[in-house]
């Protein structure tokens, strides 16, 4: 078994991956976007700059974006493993990665308004631990910046304004509205994680967990899959474009989950992720062998 310090080392590696190595499916989507834009347009130039930046960050193992965000962490662990140990090890990993400039000191004490200086504080990072029957630990993370986090939105249905009822069409209307409201402010072209159902807290958490999915995967539930494909197309018809400069590439993907709801509530929670979808995952064996996941 690995010691707590060894877990911290592994987690620092996962953070370094996420901060500097953009997943290949996101890179491919950005390239498709660039090729779709008019040559010489503001949209094409913005995407060119983004693609250059992705390569520079990758080659130098430096942060893709200076806002290294909140680390959102999901850990699966074998039966009997201490979740306190894993959470503590990840918190320490955030402090160490911050000291090595893989993360920015990104935690501000909300009472004193002072930056903690080491990137960690109550609620940062958010670590979700879940037991499973496998012998390995699987850790998946997303680094989600503040600019895009500020573009998240939660809707309570029905909505007269959006002509949205408590059904899939209503869900679709809310998500499309969220894309339009975000404009370019969340660093378009963005990726939409959404959840319908749940309460106000669980709905947002699930919407963020959707951001762990590959852009080219398909939702196993046919109705939701169809909605994801339709929203991707409709979002790009809004014409907001990269950075909100206007253009054809407004979003790169839409990923939707659903939870049960109370009879009285019907929430649609939308998390906007910037183009720099800094997602990383690793499966780590009892002896410390690492298998990187896409």
């Amino acid at each position, binding site marked *: 078994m690995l010691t707590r310090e060894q877990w911290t080392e592994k987690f620092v590696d996962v953070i370094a991956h996420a901060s500097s190595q953009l997943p290949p499916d996101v890179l491919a989507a950005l390239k498709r976007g660039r090729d779709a834009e008019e040559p010489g347009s503001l949209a094409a130039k913005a995407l060119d*700059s983004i693609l250059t930046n992705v390569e520079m960050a990758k080659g130098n193992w430096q*942060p893709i974006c200076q806002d290294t965000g909140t680390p959102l962490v999901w850990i699966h662990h074998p039966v009997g493993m201490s979740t306190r140990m894993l959470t503590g090890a990840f918190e320490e990993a955030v402090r160490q990665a911050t000291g090595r400039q893989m993360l920015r000191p990104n935690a501000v004490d909300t009472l004193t308004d002072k*930056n903690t200086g080491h990137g960690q504080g109550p609620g940062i990072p958010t670590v979700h631990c879940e037991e499973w029957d496998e012998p390995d630990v699987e850790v998946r993370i997303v680094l989600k910046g503040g600019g895009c986090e500020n573009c998240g939105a939660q809707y309570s249905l029905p909505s007269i304004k959006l002509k949205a009822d408590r059904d899939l069409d209503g869900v679709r209307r809310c998500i499309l*509205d969220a894309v339009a409201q975000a*404009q370019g*402010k969340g660093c378009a072209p963005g990726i939409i994680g959404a959840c319908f159902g749940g309460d106000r807290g669980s709905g947002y958490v699930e919407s963020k967990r959707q951001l762990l999915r590959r852009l080219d995967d398909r939702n196993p539930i046919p109705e939701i899959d169809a909605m994801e494909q339709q929203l991707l197309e409709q979002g790009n018809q809004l014409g907001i474009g990269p950075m*909100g400069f206007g253009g054809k590439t407004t979003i790169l993907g839409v990923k939707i989950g659903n939870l049960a709801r109370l009879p009285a509530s019907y929430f649609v929670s939308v998390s906007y992720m910037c183009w720099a979808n800094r997602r990383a995952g690793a499966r780590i064996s009892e002896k410390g062998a690492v298998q990187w996941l896409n």
Partner: protein
Amino acid sequence: MAKLSLPCDEAQIRGLKVGDFLELSGRMITGRDAAHHWLLHGFREEVASFLKDSVIYHVGPVVKKHEDGHYTFVAAGPTTSAREEPFQADVIGKYGLRGVIGKGGMGPKTLKGLQEHGAVYLHAVGGTAQVLAQAVVKVEQVFQLKEFGVPEALWVIQVKDFPVVVTMDSHGSSLHAEVEKASKAKLEQMLGLSA
């Protein structure tokens, strides 16, 4: 691509319009949420000369402190400017700024301030922290580091060929307002909400 040296003068700024690409060289200062508050409470003599006829960059950089005490920017893309909307026009007027660099654009109050004082909004590509950090050739000094922390401090930097595009000019044009209007009209059409 056109070049602009900082500091600059009002005539140069009045000559710029929405859609112009620019490469900036010279000295500028960074500042975001805490800095804008601070700049408006009293007159901050110690930084005034860095703001006059130059630009303020909305950024919270990742910074490395070297053993001999000097700093370099490791990652430095723009942050969302909209949060400074209540303060920006006043900061521009008070300190004689000629421009703002950020992302996402700003609103009507800032647009009016740009017209009134002869300044522009310059959009850098959000998330391109490596491309832009490379254009920061020197970190000269820093203000309010202890009080505000690394992301919120005011860093005085030298840049070379720092790429931006004018998205709000000093003649009342805003690309952001245009795109927002068109995209929201499209949304209303798609959802059948048009009156």
